[in-house]
């Protein structure tokens, strides 16, 4: 009896954990399981509506929807579009946030105020930010084209161009995120022991050398974490596209989540959407594992 008692631990612990257990179980873990089951089934929306909470009716179709997705040119295009987004978003956000962190880490005139300004875009919702950028990059009367025309450049109609629409979305996302990642780098910078810089001073290191040989390597771990977070958020771009371009022009801004949303909520292709979302999940897991290996190798 006392053995069982000891194995069970504190009885009150179960009360403390219960709300989280129920809510996360039903609204986080169960959906993950639901999706994988759904991705192997031909689900009729009508049948699904009639079934119970834990019923996922439909005929088993194996990996059909996964094969379908990978053979679907639009899905491949969405992956390429997502890559295009990431290629712009990830490096600019990383470089931008390191640079700003280095700047705000110094005692400069007005630094506290400017730091706040850098952070404000992060609390601006994606909806608000998207609308602001739609207006800024308006082809006929946007501020960006007005500024460009000052230096003699006729700006394109950004969001109506299949080349430029995605970069605008990426730049907007950079604007929203750099302040937050700046903070992460700032806490990284502040954890670097100051005596390392004193040693470097004694050795007569230049400013650049100090950055290259002290700051950058010690920020390595932070950078890897930041990179994982940025890559994963590149794979989750949805609201921006929904509001700014609706996936167009000519599907040039259709990202994987946007495609999945359309499949699910416009065409009610439940199994297909679930399969696509799991392919996305697998990509995220692969990225995470590769990065983790990288971290272990560099630190071990």
């Amino acid at each position, binding site marked *: 009896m006392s053995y069982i008692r000891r194995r069970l631990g*504190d009885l009150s*612990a179960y009360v403390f*954990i219960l709300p989280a257990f129920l809510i996360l179980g039903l609204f986080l873990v169960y959906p993950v399981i639901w999706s994988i089951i759904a991705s192997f089934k031909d689900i009729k929306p009508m049948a699904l509506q009639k079934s119970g909470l834990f019923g996922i009716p439909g005929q088993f179709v194996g990996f059909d929807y996964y094969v379908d997705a990978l053979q679907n040119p639009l899905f491949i295009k969405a992956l390429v579009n997502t890559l295009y987004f990431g290629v712009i978003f990830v490096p600019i956000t990383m470089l931008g946030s390191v640079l700003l962190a280095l700047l705000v880490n110094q005692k400069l005139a007005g630094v506290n105020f400017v730091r706040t300004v850098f952070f404000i875009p992060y609390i601006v919702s994606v909806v608000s930010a998207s609308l602001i950028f739609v207006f800024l990059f308006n082809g006929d009367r946007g501020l960006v084209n007005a500024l460009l025309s000052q230096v003699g450049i006729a700006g394109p109609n950004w969001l109506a161009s299949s080349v430029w629409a995605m970069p605008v979305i990426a730049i907007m996302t950079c604007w929203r995120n750099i302040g937050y990642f700046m903070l992460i780098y700032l806490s990284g910078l502040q954890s670097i022991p100051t005596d390392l810089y004193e040693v470097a001073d004694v050795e007569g290191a230049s400013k650049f050398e100090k950055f290259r040989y002290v700051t950058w390597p010690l920020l390595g771990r932070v950078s890897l974490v930041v990179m994982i977070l940025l890559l994963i958020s590149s794979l989750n771009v949805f609201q921006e596209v929904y509001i700014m371009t609706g996936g167009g022009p000519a599907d040039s801004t259709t990202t994987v989540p946007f495609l999945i949303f359309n499949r699910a909520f416009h065409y009610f292709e439940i199994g297909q959407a679930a399969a696509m979302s799991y392919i996305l999940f697998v990509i995220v897991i692969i990225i995470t594992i590769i990065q983790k290996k990288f971290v272990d190798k560099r630190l071990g």
Partner: protein
Amino acid sequence: MYAKKLLPTIVLWIFGILFFLPVYWLIASSLKSDAEITKFPPTLWPDTMVWKNYPEIWDLLKFNVTALNSLTIAIPTVILTVLFSSMAGYAFSKKRFLGKDAMFVVLIATMTVPPTVLLLPLYFIITKLGMFDTLLGLILPFSVTVFAIFFTKQSIDDIPNEMLEAAKVDGSGDFRTFFKIVMPLLRPTLTALIIIDFVQNWNSFTMPLVLLQSEDNFTLPLKLALMAQESVSIPWSKILAANVLTLLPVLALFIAMQKQFVAGLMAGAVKG
């Protein structure tokens, strides 16, 4: 002294202006008249300030209703998140129970799940629970977050066990200890959590888009987005005024509680 730092100061301020520009442009444009907003090149500041854009868009947005909906969702969600997550954080930090390690691993694993994977099943699960097109459907399922559990657990780890044991010796029950000793000690953490979670819920768009149907239930961002998309007839100045109205509450909260917010984010940011 200052000459040496002149260059970084200038660079800092250039970036500061660049980052502030979209917000400035938002505010300036929201005060322009319907005619002035279509001018090219645009005026840098409104020739005449059209304050009536605001009361007009207030009505179109049904601000009274939509803002109340947003608050009715955000406030209970934040309160429950703080309560439930810190309870779980306490259990993970200081208690022994069956399946603790396994649950912890599952929690860490869920952090990689893309939100897109959850969207469709959440829609069906919440609908089957009868919460489709209700505000409750946007409160209950989001009243615990994995982030909040880790965030509170980190701070609870720092509370010395001796302190809790001393309370136990003094005859304080588990719940009394939690509410009278642990929660007060978590104050800075919980303040940061409240702000972070509030901003997140206030700004939320995708779940309301999927789960809300009747206009009387719409939240501010949802109403704003649909208004901007559906009605070409509303001039941009008014859309932007609506945008300012949507932004103002979180901006005010942020400016009032900036220190706790930033400190909290920095503490919780990198512990991977």
